[in-house]
């Protein structure tokens, strides 16, 4: 088993208990989604006040709600197209809110450079979701690129808990740009039936050229 797989398995057990509790209490999944957004707003506020560790704890709570809403909906047989839409829209609010908290903090500190880095990271994070949503209206699936929402959220938590937010923002920015580029290229390739670069390279390697 990979180490990220082991971490995922370890985190699954407490989450399973929370999901079971929500199912037993028949909490509507849309309310879980909204609760997640509210906690993310609190986390953003704490980030803006430079209380990183407290923000990290609140982010954990917020993202438990974010994670379980879909699972609870499935188990309560309350899945609906609107629920999926609502979840995606609320996720964007949560994402943007955290970035705004940091932009406020850096603006307060007079650090224009980090205001710009954070704003760009926010822009490309939104573009990551948009490119996939738009691509999937044209092609069947566009699940390429590394920096998706779960990676971003975990990075935010790592940055908050270990007080290394600058490094985290650089990683989010660079890998979000790469992810957006991946999705644009993948969609272009699928729509134009162009040959795959990796297959061309692998074939060249196999030929010994």
């Amino acid at each position, binding site marked *: 088993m990979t180490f*990220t797989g082991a971490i995922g398995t370890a985190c699954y057990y407490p989450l399973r208990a929370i999901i079971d509790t929500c199912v037993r209490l028949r909490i509507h999944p849309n309310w879980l989604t909204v609760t997640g957004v509210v906690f993310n707003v609190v986390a953003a506020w704490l980030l803006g006040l430079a209380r990183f560790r407290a923000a990290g704890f609140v982010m954990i709570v917020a993202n438990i709600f974010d994670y379980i809403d879909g699972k609870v909906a499935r188990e309560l047989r309350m899945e609906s197209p609107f629920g999926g839409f609502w979840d995606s829209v609320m996720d964007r609010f949560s994402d943007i809110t955290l970035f705004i908290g940091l932009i406020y903090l850096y603006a307060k500190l007079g650090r224009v450079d980090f205001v710009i880095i954070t704003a760009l990271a926010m822009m490309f994070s939104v573009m990551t979701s948009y490119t996939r949503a738009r691509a999937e209206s044209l092609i069947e699936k566009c699940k390429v690129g590394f920096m998706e929402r779960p990676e971003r959220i975990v990075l935010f938590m790592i940055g908050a808990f270990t007080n290394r937010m*600058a490094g985290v923002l650089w990683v989010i920015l660079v890998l979000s740009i790469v992810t957006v580029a991946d999705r644009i290229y993948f969609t272009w390739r699928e729509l134009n039936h162009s040959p795959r670069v990796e297959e061309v390279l692998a074939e060249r390697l196999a030929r010994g050229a």
Partner: protein
Amino acid sequence: MKRLLTLPALVLWRAFFWTYERATWQYDLWVIAILAFVWLVPPAWLGDPMARGHGLVGWILERLR
């Protein structure tokens, strides 16, 4: 020579044109690289206005001086 260039090109392409699932060894490698960057690079190199301390690389460089 061409072959020598093709292999790194393929590795780089696969690393950046990401098509792997989570919890694969390729994913683990990226996670390790990202965590190394975040935790080891001295915050001063990135101009981090909030971080305290030098980070592991900064601490090692200081000891070597």
